[in-house]
């Protein structure tokens, strides 16, 4: 994508945002007196703030960019991640699990596991989470630095002490530096406040873009009609290989294409995998056990506030598909309208490759059949045969300039870079001013992604690794100091991970894969821990281990249909099937969902059987407040009906069902 031109007003908004987040950190610094203030906000934050932070912590820029990309690729069915996945999980967390997280006075999820089970379970969870969260932080910062490098027009290459630094490095270090400053000063509270700020910026920055996009496309009905054309002939817009057709409502209906089976929807999934793989295992596994989000709920003022936090978050979460998925759908609808002169941006091709391709065009004649392949090879991407033939003919008729040929080549690329969709919409519809706001919102969400991960990391390290195993029984001031040190270390490690992510795209795929292996079984452990007093520490540890091992085995023996060539050999071993091929799935998403179901089941069964075979190490008295059957039920009678978590939860679920019906 060509760089976007920014005006003074855009830069002012950007600088104002940076000034504000640093200012928030500075003001909060004087209230940071204990390690608890710094790492856990000492349970002092009002519900609406923790609620919005809970949601915003998960709302990284990768989600903003990714959901628009998926909206273009898959349509409204992507909303399952919200309406079948996130909302039920958040309600369950609020009503059933928060009493244990908050009531146990645990300072983190691993600490709860230690109280409920034993140290090995805590260590396993703390270590895997710590590694995971630092890498997630790095991936976020890498994506930010790349975005800025592609977007901003300056070339900032310098040479210091004999080392070459480019724009990427400057942006990475400056953004990391800003995050470091405000987290070091204000701790978790800083991160929470900036997450809430980020939330409003995203909503207020993107809403006008969605409105303008819809308006340009002629309104929702016009979009719906265009998407019918897209769904029946997706190869015309480079969405699917030629020959694949879906029902006209495949992009605008959430359930019908899924109920039709994996071949009837572009996601390639069946309803069972969606409901149990995505809806149950993956979503509950994330929202109910991932300390990044649970930490925000644990920072609430009191038990009722803690229970209501995920519910407050669920309200905007439910409506978010309209803000983040809809732009993607509008984009692909616009691409299908010839009068709009818009297409999903093609992948970026380097100038040298363009130069090579221009030479091929110049030296080919219109009847040359091999020319098409040569052009495609030179560019490194697939091209539209008709468009390239036209281009060669046009050049043969009257000599075109280099830039005209390049433009013709650009328009003939038959691949889409979906991750550029949201940026292309901003470029198309945002005048200076609004553009600054939207871009700053994107920047804010990348940075708060790093801040959120670092604040989760420093708490886990300080309490669950350092204090638990390395240096015990020191004063609180010592742990406060350690919390600050590890914040710096966390940022540095994140920067390191960002460079790894930049260098080896494959490394990041491996990391994401491993996270999936770990995330899938953890919910089984948590579920059994909270609701079955007979679950023992040995059972939990071995069960979790078995679940992770099960994930790995499942992945080693399965892959996607598209990853197997005509002779039955697996093409890309990163996508599975490297030890053998037991089954092939229609899509990666389907493979992920089934892997989750498999891992959860293994962990669940292993934990149950091993627990029954081992002796309990904790008495009923020790487990009071940690297990459902041994905890007095939370009294809600003194609250007005509309503030009681089970009531709010039920209303939210009903609203969710209504949304599913509207977009059926």
């Amino acid at each position: 994508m060509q760089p976007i031109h920014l005006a003074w007003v855009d830069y002012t908004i950007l600088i104002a945002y940076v000034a504000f987040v640093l200012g928030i950190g500075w003001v909060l610094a004087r209230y940071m007196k204990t390690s608890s203030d710094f790492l856990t906000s000492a349970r002092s934050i009002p519900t609406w703030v923790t609620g919005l932070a809970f949601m915003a912590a998960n709302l990284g820029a990768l989600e903003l960019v990714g959901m628009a990309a998926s909206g273009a690729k898959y349509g409204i069915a992507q909303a399952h991640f919200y309406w079948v996945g996130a909302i039920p999980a958040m309600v369950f967390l609020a009503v059933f699990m928060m009493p244990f997280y908050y009531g146990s006075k645990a300072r983190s999820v691993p600490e709860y596991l230690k109280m409920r089970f034993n140290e090995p379970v805590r260590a396993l969870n703390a270590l895997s989470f710590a590694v995971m969260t630092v890498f997630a932080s790095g991936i976020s910062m890498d994506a930010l630095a790349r975005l800025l490098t592609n977007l901003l027009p300056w070339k900032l290459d310098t040479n210091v002490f004999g080392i070459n630094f480019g724009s990427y490095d400057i942006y990475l270090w400056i953004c990391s530096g800003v995050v470091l400053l405000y987290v070091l000063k204000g701790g978790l509270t800083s991160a929470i406040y900036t997450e809430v700020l980020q939330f409003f910026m995203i909503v207020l920055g993107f809403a006008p873009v969605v409105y303008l996009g819809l308006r340009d496309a002629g309104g929702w009905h016009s979009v719906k009609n265009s998407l019918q054309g897209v769904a029946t002939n997706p190869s015309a817009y480079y969405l699917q290989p030629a020959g694949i057709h879906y029902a006209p409502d495949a992009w605008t209906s959430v359930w019908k294409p899924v109920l039709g089976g994996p071949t009837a929807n572009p996601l390639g999934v069946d309803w069972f995998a969606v409901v149990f793989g995505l809806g149950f295992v993956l979503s509950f596994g994330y929202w109910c056990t991932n300390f990044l989000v649970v930490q925000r709920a644990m920072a609430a003022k009191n038990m009722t506030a803690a229970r209501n936090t995920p519910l407050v978050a669920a309200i905007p979460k439910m409506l978010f598909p309209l803000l983040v998925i809809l732009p993607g759908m509008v984009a692909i609808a616009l691409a299908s309208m010839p009068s709009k002169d818009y297409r999903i941006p093609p992948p970026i091709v380097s100038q040298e490759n363009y130069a090579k391709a221009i030479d091929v065009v110049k030296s080919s004649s219109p009847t040359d059949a091999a020319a098409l392949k040569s052009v495609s090879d030179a560019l490194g991407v697939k091209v539209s045969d008709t468009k390239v033939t036209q281009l060669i003919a046009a050049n043969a008729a009257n000599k075109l300039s280099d830039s005209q040929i390049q433009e013709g080549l650009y328009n003939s690329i038959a691949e889409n870079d979906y991750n550029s969709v949201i940026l292309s919409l901003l470029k198309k519809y945002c005048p200076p001013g609004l553009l600054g706001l939207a871009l700053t919102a994107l920047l804010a969400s990348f940075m708060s992604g790093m801040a959120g991960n670092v604040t989760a990391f420093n708490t886990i390290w300080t309490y669950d690794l350092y204090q638990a195993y390395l240096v015990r029984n020191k004063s609180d001031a010592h742990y406060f100091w350690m919390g600050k040190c590890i914040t710096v270390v966390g940022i540095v490690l994140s920067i390191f991970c960002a460079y790894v992510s930049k260098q080896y795209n494959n490394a990041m795929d491996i990391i994401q894969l491993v996270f999936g292996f770990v995330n899938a079984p953890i919910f089984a452990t948590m579920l059994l821990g909270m609701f079955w007093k007979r679950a023992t520490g040995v059972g939990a540890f071995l069960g979790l281990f078995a679940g992770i091992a099960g994930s790995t085995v499942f992945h080693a023996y399965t892959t996607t249909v598209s990853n197997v060539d005509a002779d039955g050999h697996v093409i890309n071993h990163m996508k599975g099937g490297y030890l053998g091929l037991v089954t092939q799935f229609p899509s990666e998403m389907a493979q992920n969902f089934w892997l989750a179901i498999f891992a959860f089941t293994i962990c669940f069964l292993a934990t149950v059987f091993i627990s029954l075979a081992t002796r309990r190490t904790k008495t009923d008295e020790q487990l009071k407040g940690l297990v459902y059957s041994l905890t007095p039920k939370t009294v809600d009678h003194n609250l007005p009906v509309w503030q009681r978590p089970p009531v709010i939860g039920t209303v939210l679920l009903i609203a969710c069902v209504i949304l599913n019906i509207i977009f059926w």
Partner: protein
Amino acid sequence: MGLDIRWPIGLMFSLIGVLLLIEGAIGGDKVLSLGININLIWGVVLLVFGVLMLLGAARGRKTPPSA
């Protein structure tokens, strides 16, 4: 905790609202998107939002914080 979050949010969006208003008012033709002066309209919306936040924060300061 110490700082009512509505202060920075209110200030930030009031400022952005004013900036968008100025850009919308003096920008001329290049600020029209699909023929709508979106900066002007949205600038007003953001300014109202920011002021409401500030009012909320000011009111919150009058009632003493609950224990």
